[in-house]
C-alpha cells in the first residue's frame, strides 16, 4: 500500500510541475499549452542524447526557429528599424542559439559532466519555448481561446513529428542524477526521487514568490487579466508571453530530465504525461498553483492505485476523474456572460 502511495507521489510531483507550467502559460497568454508534453520529451531526450555522446537535433531546431523568429521580428518592426530593436533581435534570436549550437557541437564527443549536459539541455529547450511563442502565438495573441487552442494543437503535431525525426522511434534512458539511496521503514528512497520532491517544492514556492511578490510577476498576472489594460499601463505583453513560454519550456525540460533516469521515454511519451499534468491544472481551475499541486498528487496516487488494481482501465480512470471536477467548477461560477470574438 505505502509503496503505491510513494510511487503516486513521485509521479504526482512531476504532474504538479507540468500542471504549474500549464497554469502559468494559460494565465498569462490564454494559450492551453498542448505541446507542454513535447518540452518534457525534448528535455529528457536531449539530455539522454548528450549523455550518450550524440548530437541532439533539438539544437538544430532551436537555431532554425531562432532564424525564423528573427525574420518575424524584423518584418513586424520594418517600419521603424532602429538599432536597439535589430540588436536585441540579433542577440536573442541568432547569436544565442548559434553559441549554444556551437558549444553543443564542440562538447559532443568529449565526455562532459552531468551538470554541463543538464545545463545545455535546459538552455536548448528554453530557447525553443521562447521562439515557439514568438513564431506561432505572438501574431495571434489577441484571438479567442479556441483559435489559440487549435494553434497549440498544430504546434504539438509539428513538435512531435520533429521529436521522431531527431530521436527516432526507440525509447531512451538517461543517467541518474545521483545513485544514493536509503531505506526508511518499508520504503526505499532513491536520490532521484528525493531530487523530484525537492525540485517540485522549490518550483512551487519559487513561482508563488515570483507571482506574489515581484513586479515582473505582477505584470505577468496583469497581462493575463486584461491585455489592453496591461499595455496601457506600460507592460510589454509580448515580452510577458515570451517569458511565460520560456518558463514553461524550462519546467517541462526539468521534469523530463528528472524522469528519464526512472522510465524509458519515447518521442511521443510526453503527450500523455503532459495531459495528466493537464488534468491536475484543470482541477486547479487553471488559476491556482497550490490547488494544482495538490490535485497533481491526487492524480499520481489514483494512477498508481488503479494501475495496481485495474491496470487495463488506468487511463480511463485518470481521464474520467476530470469530469466531475469540471462540472463542479462550472456550477461554482455560472451565469458569467462570455464576451467572445
Amino acid at each position, binding site marked *: 500500500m505505502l509503496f503505491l502511495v510513494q510511487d503516486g507521489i513521485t509521479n504526482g510531483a512531476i504532474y504538479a510541475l507540468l500542471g504549474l507550467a500549464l497554469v502559468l502559460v494559460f494565465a498569462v497568454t490564454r494559450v492551453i499549452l498542448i505541446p507542454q508534453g513535447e518540452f518534457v520529451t525534448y528535455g529528457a531526450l536531449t539530455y539522454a542524447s548528450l549523455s550518450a555522446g550524440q548530437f541532439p537535433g533539438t539544437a538544430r531546431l532551436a537555431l532554425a526557429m531562432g532564424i525564423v523568429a528573427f525574420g518575424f521580428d524584423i518584418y513586424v518592426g520594418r517600419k521603424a528599424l532602429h538599432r536597439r530593436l535589430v540588436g536585441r533581435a540579433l542577440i536573442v534570436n541568432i547569436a544565442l542559439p548559434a553559441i549554444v549550437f556551437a558549444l553543443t557541437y564542440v562538447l559532443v564527443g568529449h565526455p562532459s559532466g552531468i551538470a554541463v549536459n543538464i545545463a545545455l539541455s535546459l538552455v536548448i529547450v528554453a530557447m525553443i519555448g521562447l521562439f515557439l511563442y514568438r513564431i506561432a502565438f505572438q501574431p495571434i495573441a489577441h484571438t479567442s481561446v479556441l483559435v489559440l487552442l487549435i494553434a497549440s494543437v498544430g504546434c504539438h503535431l509539428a513538435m512531435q*513529428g520533429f521529436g521522431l525525426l531527431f530521436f527516432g522511434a526507440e525509447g531512451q534512458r538517461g543517467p541518474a542524477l545521483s545513485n544514493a539511496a536509503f531505506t526508511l521503514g518499508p520504503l526505499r528512497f532513491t536520490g532521484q526521487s528525493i531530487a523530484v520532491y525537492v525540485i517540485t517544492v522549490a518550483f512551487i514556492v519559487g513561482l508563488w514568490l515570483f507571482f506574489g511578490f515581484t513586479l515582473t510577476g505582477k505584470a505577468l498576472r496583469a497581462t493575463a487579466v486584461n491585455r489592453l489594460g496591461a499595455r496601457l499601463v506600460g507592460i510589454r505583453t509580448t515580452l510577458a508571453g515570451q517569458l511565460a513560454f520560456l518558463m514553461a519550456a524550462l519546467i517541462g525540460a526539468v521534469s523530463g530530465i528528472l524522469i528519464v533516469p526512472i522510465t524509458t521515454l519515447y518521442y511521443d511519451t510526453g503527450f500523455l504525461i503532459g*495531459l495528466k499534468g493537464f488534468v491536475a491544472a484543470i482541477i486547479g481551475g487553471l488559476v491556482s498553483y497550490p490547488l494544482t499541486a495538490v490535485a497533481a498528487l491526487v492524480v499520481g496516487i489514483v494512477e498508481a492505485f488503479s494501475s495496481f488494481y485495474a491496470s487495463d482501465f488506468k487511463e480511463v480512470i485518470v481521464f474520467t476523474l476530470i*469530469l466531475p471536477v469540471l462540472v463542479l467548477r462550472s456550477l461554482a461560477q455560472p451565469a458569467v456572460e462570455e*464576451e467572445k470574438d
Partner: protein
Amino acid sequence: MAMPQRLPILLFALVMAAIPFVPGMPPFWIVLLDNIGLSALVAMGLVLLTGVGGLTSFGQAAFCGFGAYTTAVLTTTYGLSPWLTLPLSLLVSGIAAVVLGLVTVRLSGHYLPLGTIAWGIGLFYLFSKLEFLGRNDGISGIPPLSIGSFRMIDPGTIYFAIWIAVLIAALLTMNLLDSRTGRAIRALRRGHIAAEAFGVHAPRAKLLVFIYAAVLAGLSGWLYAHFVRAANPTPFGAQAGIEYLFVAVVGGAGYVWGGVLGAAIVVILKEVLQSYLPLIFGGSGQLETIVFGILLVTLLQLAPTGVWPWLMARLPFTPIRKRPDMSLTLPARPRAAAIPSVLLQIDHARKQFGGVIAVNDVSFDVQAREIVALIGPNGAGKSTTFNLITGVLTASSGRISVLGKAINNAPPQEIVKLGISRTFQHVKLVPDMTVLENVAIGAHLRGQSGAISSMFRLDRADEARLLAEAARQIERVGLSEQINQLAGSLSLGQQRIVEIARALCVDPILLLLDEPAAGLRHMEKQQLASLLRQLRDGGMSVLLVEHDMGFVMDLADRIVVLDFGTKIAEGTPGAIKTNPDVIKAYLGAVA
C-alpha cells in the same frame, strides 16, 4: 449574379454522381473521395456544434467509435443486417451524446474543450480495453452493405452510400440553421443572456446541437465500419478528434459547406504529404505531421475564419433573399382579459454582491399605458434593477410582481412569457445574422416548429408568419431599408433600434429599454420618442434607463431616481427637475 439557393447543391450532386463513371478514373481517387465524405460528415456536425453553436469539441471521433462499434458487434456477433444496425448505431451515438452532453454543455468557457479532450481520451482507452470490442485488435469481418444481391464491397459502390449521406446531411443541416430553432442555435455563440431573454432555453438548445453532431459522427462511424469492414480503436482516438476539429476550422467552422471543403483539403493534403515528402526529404520520420502542424498554425495566422468564406467572397454570386410576405399575421399573445392598473410592482427589491449593495430596498411601480424613466448617475443600480426584473439576476430579498403575481426569481425564459421584453445596454445582437433574422429571435416563443420539422421543411408556414411579424416590427421602427443587411454592419445607434424591434416581436405589455437613445442622432432620438409615445397610446407600458435628460424629461410620464442603489426621488419630470436631492446627486452638494 443572383442564384437560386438550391441550384449549386443540385449541380454539386450531379457532378459527384458522375465522377465514378468518368472513364479512366483511378480507383485510388475514389477511395480518397470516400474518405473525404466520411470526414465531411463529422466536420458538418462540428460546424453546427463549434462554428455555429460555439461549443468546441475534441471528442467527435469517440462518437464515430460508438457508431462503428455498435454495427461491428451487432453484425458480427449477432448477425444482424447492416441496415437494421443503422438506426441502432445512430441511437447509441445519440444516447452517448445525451449522457456526455448533460455533463459537458453546462461547462463554461475553456472548460468545455478540455472536458471533451478528457472524455475523448477516456473513451479511446475504454474501446481498446473492453473484451467484447476486441481490445486493441478490434473487430474484423464486418459484412458489407448490400441491397438485394448488390453488395457494396469495393470503394466505388459504397461511394454512393457515403455521398448520399453527405448530401442529405448537408441539406438537413442547412434547413435546420434556416429556421426558428436554427436562429436560437446561432444566437448561442454570442452568449446566452440575449437568447434567454426571448425564451430560448439555452442548455436545451446546446444539448440539441451536441446530439445532432454526435449522430452525424455516428453515421460516419457506421459507414466507416462497413467501408473498411473492420473496427479498431485507432481511428477513434484523441488524434482523430483533433483532426476533425482541424477539418472544420480549415474549411470554415461557421459554414456547412466549409465542412465538406475542409475535409477535401485535409484528406488530399495528407495524402500528398504522405506520398511526396519522403521523396523530397528521404524516408525517415513522420514528416507529414510536421508539415501538417506548421500549415495549421500558418493558416490560423493568415485566415482564421477558414477557406470557405474566403472563397465565397471571391465568387460573383449573391444569394436571393426573399422578402417576407407581410400579409401573414401571427396571433397576438394571450393577455389577461382586464389589465389591472398596476403592471409591474417592485417592493423593497434588494441585490447584494458580496459586501456591495447594488440595489438597496428599491420600490416603485409601472402603471398600464405609462412611460417611466429610471435615471441616476453611473453605478446607481439601474441596469441591476433591470436584470432583477428580467430574471437575469436573482434578488437577495424583496418582491417583484407582474400583474399582481410575484415572479419569485423566475428565469428570463419565464419572464418573457409574461409579456416583458427588453433591450440591452451593451447591444447583444448576432452580428453575422441579418437584421430580419435577429429580430425574428424576438418572436421565438410565438412559433411552434421544432428541430425535426424544420430539418424536413415542415415548418414553412410557421416560419413565414414569424418572419412576416419580424418584418412588420422592423418597418415600424423604420429600418426596412436595412432588413437584409448583417446586423454587425449597422451603426451602433441602428443596432439599438434593431434591439427594440426584436423586443417588440414578443408582443409585450411592458418594454424595458436600457439606454435606447445612446448613440442616436438628434433626428433619430425624436423619431424614437414618437415611436415610444405611439406604443404607449397603443396600450403598452415602457420602463427606460436613459442618460439623455432632454430626451427623458420630454418623454417620461414619471421618473424614478436612483443613487448608490437607493431610490432618492420619484415624480413627474417637472418635480424631479427641481428636487434638491436629485440636483445634489448629479451635481454634488452645494457648499
